[in-house]
């Protein structure tokens, strides 16, 4: 056993890079969000350019906020704290650099593809398959580097922050791979391996757990390391932190279906999602209280220290968001809140308050240490804090009000029993003042982010000519001499061997061993996630009664399929749902509620998660073809108060008939019974486009549209939700 003290250094260069990237992408992500907020009230600011529409830019904002801003913050936290907690330099500097540059390249690739309509249209998983593969490569490099560092550690006990990082690495890998399984047809287009209900289920299993394991667990790891450091006090209760960890791992993974209440998802899955979400209440609040009580005896410093200010408000927002999340998962609350801006307010209180403030608390704490100089301006950091806090509050209060207003107006009936606001646009106009207030709040928050970036850059500029290497010393990890619980069964004992085993189990002495054994910790984390996921997925995929087929529901024609791909590419799901819930106000407004069997050919599903515009599930046949042409050309020509951007280029851009057959073949390969279309996809598409173009011309519309994209989109929209009206039989 070696007890010789070893000297070693930490790799802070990679931490500096990730810290910089966090500050830069934070400004980019929030600026994009501010631009989108302005476009919601002034849609003409897309300037008629496809790349600037809300549908294409919103995924850019969400991806930048989650993966660029929060992602880089997480990596900065992991690289700084893991080395110190494990008493070891990162396993490989080359892998650290590959991770950093690879991740930035992925972000740039997202920024270059999403505005051009290259998207899978799955929320927070929009990136197409080549970028998905790059993510896998970078994530594997990160995992090897992280677990390699654990293997080389000089600290026997693995601190709880490392557990949270470990859970993040394992679970994000599982989520990313399963949700992105797709059949590519070109470098920029693929079809999901899942269809309809299954696709929706998998997507929200992913979507919810991306929040859990990308925006929660690594930030809790960050909290459990940096908050004690900033407060110079140990965490209030280490026991509570362990409870916090396991309860998140065992419970969070189940909660995804609460995003799909009252949809065509089976009832049991939705109920399960709700129950587990409510169960999350206690451990989440336990974690928040643990964070805040860590400051016991240090509260007097909060007023003076911007780092602690950011952490206190960040942890408080964690508490607010994790109180509100379970609340929104309760079906009766969800019936009001779903598809409204209430969800947007909830998400922003979490993202800006929890992720944003924890990130900047960490950056302000890190900056003097990694740049080895004083923070450039404490006053500017304080100003950032107040601008940010005020910005979030103004933003969320306005959007909560907008969300509740929307929800109540959608479900309001007058004294005659009819919808009080039958025209959807009435409910849009009512909340526009709140959208302006959001712009004010967003501007304040962005101003704070810019201050943060300036402060980080100026601190960096006053760095020493040469960084002193950050070093430490510790004995190599030899045989552990401390207490290690073991299952010992004495030869002569009044208790049986089973009894001893029972005591060992009940006293959970095995857990003490796990805490020093990364392999077992990782294994059980993965097992919890996989078993929980399988319990939900297997019946959703294999019990047929969950998705009864409807005889009259047929595959999309080749032209409709191309039109659907245009709908996907334009990101229409960002504003329009295709899911009518079995709630009277919805069936009155939109028509017959949605059935699971209606979506069996939908790859990907397009149920959406919010209604900035009305639901489109039963729009097929509701208006003449010409109405759609006019509406896409200039939405205000058909609905004067509409806030939808114009899509005029669809009537001038050529339709790519050459790709039709490839699309049909891919769908046929995935099991869609295409019959004749497998041989004559292009001819069938051309024939249908001629019919529609003639109809539009006969209605007094423009002539010669038969080879334009608008025709395919009209074909798709006119088909939407119309199959069940042909006959009602099920088999």
């Amino acid at each position, binding site marked *: 056993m070696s007890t010789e003290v070893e000297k070693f250094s930490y790799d802070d260069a990679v931490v500096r890079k990730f810290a910089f990237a966090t500050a830069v992408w934070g400004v980019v992500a929030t600026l994009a969000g501010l631009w989108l907020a302005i476009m919601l009230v002034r849609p003409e600011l897309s300037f008629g350019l496809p790349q600037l529409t809300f549908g294409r830019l919103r995924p850019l904002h969400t991806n930048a906020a989650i993966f660029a801003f929060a992602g880089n913050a997480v990596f900065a936290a992991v690289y700084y704290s893991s080395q110190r907690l494990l008493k070891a330099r990162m396993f490989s500097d080359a892998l650290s650099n590959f991770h950093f540059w690879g991740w930035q390249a992925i972000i740039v690739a997202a920024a270059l593809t999403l505005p051009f309509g290259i998207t899978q249209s799955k929320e927070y998983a929009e990136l197409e398959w080549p970028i998905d593969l790059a993510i896998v490569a970078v994530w594997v490099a990160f995992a090897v580097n992280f677990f390699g560092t654990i293997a080389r550690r000089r*600290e026997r006990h693995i601190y709880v922050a490392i557990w949270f990082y470990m859970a993040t690495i394992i679970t994000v890998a599982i989520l990313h791979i399963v949700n992105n399984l797709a059949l590519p047809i070109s470098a920029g287009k693929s079809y999901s391996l899942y269809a309809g209900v299954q696709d929706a289920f998998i997507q929200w299993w992913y979507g919810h757990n991306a929040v859990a394991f990308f925006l929660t667990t690594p930030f809790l790891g960050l909290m459990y390391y940096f908050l004690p450091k900033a407060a110079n006090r140990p965490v209030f209760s*280490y026991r509570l932190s362990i*409870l916090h960890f*396991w309860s998140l791992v065992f419970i969070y993974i*189940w909660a995804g279906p609460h995003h799909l209440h009252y949809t065509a998802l089976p009832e049991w899955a939705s109920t399960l999602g709700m129950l587990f979400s409510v169960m999350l209440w206690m451990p989440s609040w336990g974690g928040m209280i643990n964070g805040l009580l860590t400051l016991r005896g240090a509260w007097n410093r909060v007023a003076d220290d911007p780092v602690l200010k950011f952490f206190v408000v960040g942890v408080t927002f964690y508490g607010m968001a994790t109180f509100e999340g379970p609340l929104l998962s309760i079906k009766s609350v969800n019936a009001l809140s779903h598809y409204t801006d209430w969800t947007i307010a909830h998400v922003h209180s979490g993202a800006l308050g929890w992720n944003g403030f924890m990130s900047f608390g960490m950056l302000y704490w890190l900056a003097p240490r990694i740049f080895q100089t004083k923070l450039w301006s404490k006053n500017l950091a304080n100003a950032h804090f107040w601008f940010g806090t005020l910005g979030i509050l103004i933003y969320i209060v306005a959007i909560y009000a907008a969300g509740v207003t929307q929800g109540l107006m959608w479900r309001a009936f007058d004294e005659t029993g009819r919808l009080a606001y039958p025209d959807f646009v009435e409910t849009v106009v009512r909340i526009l003042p709140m959208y302006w207030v959001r712009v004010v709040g967003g501007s304040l928050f962005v101003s704070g982010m810019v201050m943060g970036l300036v402060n980080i850059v100026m601190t960096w500029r006053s760095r020493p000519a040469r960084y002193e290497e950050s070093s430490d010393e510790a004995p190599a990890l030899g045989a552990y001499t401390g207490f290690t619980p073991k299952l010992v069964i004495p030869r002569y004992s009044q208790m049986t061997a089973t009894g001893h085993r029972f005591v060992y189990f009940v006293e959970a002495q095995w857990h003490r061993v796990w805490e020093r054994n990364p392999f077992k910790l990782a294994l059980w984390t993965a097992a919890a996630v996989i078993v929980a996921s399988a*319990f939900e997925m297997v019946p959703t995929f294999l019990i047929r009664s969950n998705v009864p087929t409807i005889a009259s529901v047929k595959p999309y024609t080749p032209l409709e399929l191309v039109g659907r791909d245009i709908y996907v590419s334009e990101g229409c799901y960002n504003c329009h749902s295709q899911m009518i819930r079995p709630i009277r106000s919805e069936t009155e407004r939109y028509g017959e509620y949605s059935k699971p069997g209606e979506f069996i050919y939908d790859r990907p599903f397009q149920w959406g998660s919010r209604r900035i515009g009305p639901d489109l599930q039963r729009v097929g046949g509701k208006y003449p073809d010409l109405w759609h042409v006019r509406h896409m050309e200039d939405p205000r020509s058909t609905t004067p108060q509409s806030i939808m951007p114009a899509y005029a280029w669809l009537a001038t851009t050529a339709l790519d008939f050459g790709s039709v057959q490839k699309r049909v073949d891919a769908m046929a390969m995935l099991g869609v019974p295409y019959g004749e279309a497998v041989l004559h996809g292009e001819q069938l598409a051309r024939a249908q486009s001629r019919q529609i173009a003639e109809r539009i011309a006969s209605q007094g519309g423009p002539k010669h549209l038969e080879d334009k994209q608008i025709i395919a989109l009209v074909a798709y929209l006119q088909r939407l939700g119309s199959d069940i009206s042909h006959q009602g039989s099920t088999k």
Partner: protein
Amino acid sequence: MKLSDVVSSMHLTIYAEVPLLVFMGIFMGVCLYMLRRGGDAEELARLPLRDEEAARRRR
């Protein structure tokens, strides 16, 4: 016969309740363990602060 035929005919009416009970049981177990755990937690909670404590000692 497909796997979906087998699973569909199993009539798993209490399927959803089983994991709820199992996972809730584990959750309660972890809670109990935390209440019973010995005193080394205090020491482990200081891990993030040890490098600064060591640096102070070295000074």
